[in-house]
């Protein structure tokens, strides 16, 4: 048996990235903005996938890292007058360090307890930012306006590509196998020689780094941030929905999930905002019932049937 060939996905991926890189010249400003938003959501989904999909720790607080990245970049940009080229990596680094530090204690928790703890971390971060002077408190921070969307377009695309490559590396590396083993059975993973505490923390930090970078670009792109707008629980929920919908622990799953969700909610929100939110809820129900392993699995194995629905309903005791 040979390892699966990586040539086909490499070529396909390179072609898609090349096409996207040329996209701003052929598309309307509206579609360019849509793509920036799509890249952002997809990058967040891929970043969540590292801890939630590969490692099996369902974080409900990844928006904390997004927010730390956004605020660090914004504060350095405005108060400290750093160039964006330095402020952005600083935001990513701080988010990574924070994820690593907070991860050490809370990654000892499992399942629901971990989920609730991460939710608490994100809520606490919002309150802290709300009460700090340097972050502008409740009034928020305003950044200088950049007229062209192109820097944001390429930065978001670059972060998305990097996050996807990291997920791809995880899917076929010693480190990635360690994370998957932790997800599947942590006691067995530990007995087999995996330093589970270190691996989980590293995965969380990596996840936090990407969320932080996305947050930094988001802040400068949107030019105004405040605690209510940045530390929104719904942002974490969206990361989870996109990863779950597309297929947790797969490389393309979060991309598919982001594409479908961003497109549909964009279409629906032009009609009615609440309709878009309804759609998110509907997606969760449909995924749980029809395809617990996500869209990627359905496409690759063509597993979609009423029989499966019946089986899933039985398993949930309906």
């Amino acid at each position: 048996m040979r390892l699966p060939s990586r040539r086909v996905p490499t070529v396909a991926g390179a072609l898609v990235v090349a096409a996207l890189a040329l996209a701003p010249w052929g598309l309307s400003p509206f579609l360019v903005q849509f793509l920036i938003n799509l890249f952002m959501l997809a990058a967040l989904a891929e970043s969540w996938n590292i801890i939630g999909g590969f490692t099996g720790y369902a974080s409900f607080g990844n928006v904390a890292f997004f927010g730390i990245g956004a605020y660090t970049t914004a504060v350095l940009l405005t108060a400290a007058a750093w160039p964006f080229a330095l402020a952005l990596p600083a935001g990513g680094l701080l988010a990574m360090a924070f994820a690593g530090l907070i991860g050490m204690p809370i990654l000892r928790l499992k399942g629901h307890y971990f989920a609730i703890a991460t939710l608490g971390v994100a809520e606490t971060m919002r309150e802290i930012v709300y009460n700090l002077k340097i972050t502008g408190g409740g009034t928020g921070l305003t950044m200088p306006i950049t007229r062209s969307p192109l820097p944001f377009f390429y930065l978001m695309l670059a972060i998305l590509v990097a996050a996807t490559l990291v997920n791809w590396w995880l899917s076929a590396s010693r480190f990635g196998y360690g994370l998957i083993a932790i997800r599947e059975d942590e006691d067995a993973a530990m007995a087999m020689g995996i330093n589970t505490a270190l691996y989980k923390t590293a995965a969380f930090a990596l996840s936090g780094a990407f969320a932080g970078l996305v947050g930094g670009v988001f802040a400068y792109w949107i030019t105004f941030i405040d605690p209510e707008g940045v530390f929104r629980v719904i942002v974490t929920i969206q990361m989870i929905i996109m990863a779950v919908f597309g297929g947790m622990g797969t490389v393309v799953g979060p991309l598919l999930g982001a594409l479908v969700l961003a497109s549909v909610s964009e279409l629906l929100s032009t009609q009615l905002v609440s309709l878009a939110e309804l759609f998110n809820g509907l997606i969760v129900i449909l995924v749980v019932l029809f395809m617990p392993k996500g869209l990627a699995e359905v496409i690759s194995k063509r597993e979609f049937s009423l029989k499966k629905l019946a089986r899933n309903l039985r398993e949930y005791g309906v």
Partner: protein
Amino acid sequence: MALIEARGVTKRFGGLAAVSEVSFDLQDGEILGLIGPNGSGKTTLVNVISGALPYSGGEVRFQGDSLRGLPPYAIGRLGVSRTFQIVKPFRNLTVVENVMVGALFGAHGGARALAVARHRAEEVLDFVSLTHRAGAAADGLNVPERKRMELARALAMRPTVLFLDEVMAGLNPSEIDAAVALIKQIRDRGTTLVVIEHVMKAIRDLSDRILVLFHGEKLTEGPPREVLNNPDVVSAYLGRRYAEQSGA
């Protein structure tokens, strides 16, 4: 010097001493049978030695170095591996991927490269006669296959000492004979073994020595013939009445 020296190993859960002052030596290259009735502390002893549970007292030395206080992964890397009585497969991975994890980590950090680990995993699967299921999902294995995969994962770690916790439970007689032959081969390849088993025929055929636990304490220790005919062991296992009837 013995490969493993256990001295006064004790594990208490509240007021209950699950393992009490157990001492034994494990010599390089031997197969030690570990027997005792249900609840006598066999699995708890393995859990303490492998780092899954903290000690209440005592110490275990491996090649002269204390294992007490080390986390399970560190003990695994030193070359002391174990299987789980209730097998813990990585359900969403294939059989060969399950075994690869053992090869990627395991003793001395294992193989760094995926291709090397896969090659090693395939060798081990061939050794335990599970090659035909290599690509199958671990979730779809039957009981004997699961036991073999559990064994294969531990072997892929290339351990110096391997604790097998009831790898024969649920197997039929011919499968047990195959497992006995397999375990002997593992020893012949240079791995020292501690075998926990309830199947007496297998224990008699396999063990160079047998250690008997009863209510967490070491009841006796010695060559199979001697230990299995010991009246105390017979009555611990089968009840006093059986011991009297059989005239042991």
